[in-house]
């Protein structure tokens, strides 16, 4: 096992877990600020810092570890001494700085860089603050003790790091894995497992166990079921021999069967010694758990070292249970984390399979043949591929909560800088969207929130003068509607300035029709034009004139649409419509000459034949059709893309009416070929961007169809 190969998973896990913990921590801190006290969250904050400290020390990231340690010390003091006169906002500011540092370093790691940041200033600041706090609050005689024992703890931690070529050196000489099964219906298997752990701790260092959160007693029936089915697995190190260990464990009450294996330190060996019945999936979990458990073990070790009562140790462990629950993927053993690249690959493959399926079932060779059995089998295949597609799709769906929760921090920071008090309401954060889409809307959302805080919300004085509550309110809402996800960013601020936007639009020469014909919506939409900003003063956060157009671009890149609505002095609402996924759409295939195009079915309103007489031509030669009293422009695809076709007479072809952004055009094509699901592929880079083409797809017969970007066509 070379250094590189073996270090990767540990590092990945460290990054993954640390980032997750930091997000949690940020959340707790912000909640604490709202409650202006740490009562409810101090244990969690303390635990998170403790965990990060431990894992960073294991990975030898000194700065992170030391910084986490200093924050932990601070909260240790707060928790144990409960000093009065604590300015929680000050503390939160300091800690958030620390969190940012650790986050930065972790992101560096994620990008393959060295975590080279210097935390000494931050550490000093925190230590000074703690020192101050202590002197102000006349620290009792025991607090220096607790700190020194704390320092001891760190030294212990540092001995405990794991590196690939120097496996963790536990002082105990033998390492065992035991699988215990209990009698059927003996009840409370999780507590029995807990009892086993408790018992083992007298004679051994317990390294890890599965299921993991048996310590948290309350109602974990699924753990009981796992134990009932697969047994309870525990790995521990001890000086005792195999027979002695067996003897000890066999005294467990209501034990049905017991297997004990001797194992070596290496991960691979653990896997090798696993009972045959275990499948690869479990092994993957194993890998993950091993890392996690090391952290766990470390924390319980540390508190033992700390010479606190076993009660304290227990409280530490208790906390580990439920909190691990929050980080869904790391504690629920039924969840594994998968590299997103693999998922993308899987998605691609499924796409190819869908196409291949069409290639087979719609194969031209089959035309005119009587193939009852073939069609039966084909239907089955079709059903399965659809299912497969749905499943793969659902794997990629991620709730918006992480993205939404990030906004708390942004709102808080900006509110402080701009002296505005702001309440952020989050609704529907459980709404799920394709992972790729989430990644790409995060920045636009941040931008919208910033805009709302900076431009939208008034200063408290101004708000009071207008008869509004002094605290501004921003609502971030997500919901499912049909095949789309809607996200709303709503503020109750001053609203957009219609006149200012109009003036600016006039100056920029954006207005192409009489001003009195412009609807409010059209006027507000000017803010999405490049370089458009009515804010005279550029602030740190927004108003540089780049922004809304980029937001709008980013949204349309993921197939979404953005709308703006505003009522003066009542606030602005930005609505974003997003597709659930980017990869597969329902499309209507149309033919123009020898080319095929696909129109996303979602944007089709209707299709119909028209007579020549229904076509109106204006003075510039633009064709229009009157449908139910409304006039719509006609876009002849063969003209637009300069394609040779025999069908140039409106009578002979077909009209497809499409809508985007509440603008409608009628596309003229030779004929409709039919509706089918298509896998969207980006146009290759060597093809220059063509107006109105959003991508391409492979058809069943292997030919290529260009996917029309309706939004691009109508504009």
């Amino acid at each position, binding site marked *: 096992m070379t250094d590189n190969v073996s270090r990767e998973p540990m590092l990945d896990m460290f990054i993954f877990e640390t980032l997750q913990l930091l997000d949690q921590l940020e959340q707790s801190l912000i909640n604490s600020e709202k409650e202006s006290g740490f009562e409810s969250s101090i244990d969690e904050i303390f635990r998170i810092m403790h965990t990060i400290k431990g894992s960073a020390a294991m990975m030898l990231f000194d700065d992170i570890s030391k910084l986490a340690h200093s924050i932990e010390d601070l909260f240790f003091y707060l928790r144990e001494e409960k000093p009065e006169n604590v300015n929680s906002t000050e503390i939160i500011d300091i800690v958030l700085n620390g969190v940012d540092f650790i986050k930065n370093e972790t992101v560096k790691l994620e990008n393959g860089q060295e975590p080279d940041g210097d935390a000494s200033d931050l550490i000093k600041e925190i230590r000074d603050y703690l020192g101050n706090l202590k002197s102000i609050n006349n620290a009792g005689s025991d607090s220096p003790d607790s700190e020194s024992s704390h320092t001891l703890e760190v030294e212990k931690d540092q001995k405990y790091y794991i590196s690939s070529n120097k496996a963790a050196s536990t002082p105990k000489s033998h390492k065992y894995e035991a699988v215990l099964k209990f009698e059927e219906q003996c009840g*409370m298997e999780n*507590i029995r497992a*807990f*009892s086993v752990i408790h018992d083992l701790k007298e004679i051994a260092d317990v390294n890890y166990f599965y299921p993991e959160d048996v310590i948290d*007693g309350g109602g974990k029936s699924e753990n009981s079921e796992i134990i009932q089915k697969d047994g309870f697995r525990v790995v521990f190190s001890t000086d005792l021999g195999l027979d002695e260990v067996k003897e000890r464990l066999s005294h467990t*009450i209501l034990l049905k069967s017991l297997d004990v294996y001797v194992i070596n330190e290496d991960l691979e060996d653990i896997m090798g010694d696993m009972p045959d019945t275990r499948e690869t999936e479990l092994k993957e979990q194993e890998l993950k758990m091993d890392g996690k458990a090391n952290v766990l073990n470390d924390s319980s070790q540390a508190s033992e070292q700390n010479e606190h009562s076993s009660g304290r140790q227990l409280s530490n462990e208790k906390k580990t249970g439920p909190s691990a629950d929050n980080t869904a993927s790391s504690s629920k053993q039924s969840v594994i984390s998968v590299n997103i690249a693999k998922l993308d690959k899987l998605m691609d493959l499924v796409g190819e399979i869908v196409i291949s399926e069409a290639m087979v079932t719609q194969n031209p060779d089959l035309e005119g043949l009587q193939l009852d059995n073939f069609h039966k089998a084909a239907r089955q295949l079709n059903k399965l591929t659809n299912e497969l597609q749905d499943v793969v799709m659902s794997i990629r769906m991620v709730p918006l909560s992480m993205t939404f929760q990030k906004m708390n921090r942004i709102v808080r920071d900006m509110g402080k800088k701009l002296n505005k008090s702001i309440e952020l309401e989050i609704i529907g954060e459980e709404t799920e969207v394709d992972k790729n889409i989430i990644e790409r809307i995060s920045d636009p959302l941040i931008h919208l929130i910033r805009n709302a805080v900076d431009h939208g919300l008034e200063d408290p004085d101004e708000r009071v003068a207008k008869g509004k509550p002094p605290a501004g309110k921003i609502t971030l809402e997500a919901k499912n509607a049909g095949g789309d996800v809607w996200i709303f960013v709503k503020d109750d601020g001053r609203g957009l300035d219609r006149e200012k936007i109009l003036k600016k639009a006039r100056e920029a020469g954006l207005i192409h029709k009489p001003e009195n014909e412009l609807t409010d919506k059209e006027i507000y939409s000017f803010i999405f034009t490049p370089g458009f900003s009515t804010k005279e003063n550029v602030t740190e956060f927004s108003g540089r004139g780049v922004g809304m157009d980029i937001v709008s671009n980013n949204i349309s890149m993921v197939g979404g649409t953005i709308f703006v609505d505003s009522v003066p002095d009542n606030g602005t609402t930005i609505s974003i419509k997003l597709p659930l996924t980017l990869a597969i759409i329902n499309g209507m295939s149309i033919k123009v000459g020898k080319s095929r195009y696909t129109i996303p079915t979602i944007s089709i309103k209707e299709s119909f034949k028209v007579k020549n007489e229904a076509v109106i031509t204006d003075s510039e030669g633009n064709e229009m059709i009157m449908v139910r009293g409304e006039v719509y422009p006609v876009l002849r695809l063969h003209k637009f893309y300069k394609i040779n076709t025999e069908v140039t007479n409106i009578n002979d072809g077909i009209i497809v009416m499409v809508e985007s952004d509440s603008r409608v055009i009628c596309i003229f094509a030779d004929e409709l070929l039919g509706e089918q699901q298509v896998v969207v592929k980006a146009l290759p880079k060597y093809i220059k961007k063509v107006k109105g083409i959003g991508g391409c797809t492979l058809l069943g017969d292997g030919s290529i169809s260009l996917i029309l970007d309706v939004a691009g066509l109508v504009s």
Partner: protein
Amino acid sequence: MKRILVVDDAGFMRASLKMMLERNGHQVVGEAENGLVAVTKYKEIRPDIVTMDITMPVCDGIKAVKMIKEFDPDAKVIMISSMGQECFVRDAILAGAKGFIVKPFKEDYVIQAIEKL
């Protein structure tokens, strides 16, 4: 043959445990209806094993385990618990109980547990 102290506030439970134990060749050397009585009787009788209910008036099973273990660190106590008392069972184990049986229990399991210790 083990000498057993049965602790439970419900007479019915004590009686059924006693019946099960005795018909498998063990001897119930004492009964107690709450934790305090249990501790006193333990000191008097020094049984091999105690079966201990958790929820009892005056002094619950967990406190009783603690007191018994203080008096005799080698004391062997088996908790008798109901479903949903996971937290209490855990506390009892931390207090030194050797194991537990979940109500409603099977005779086999009770005997097995008693004989394991």
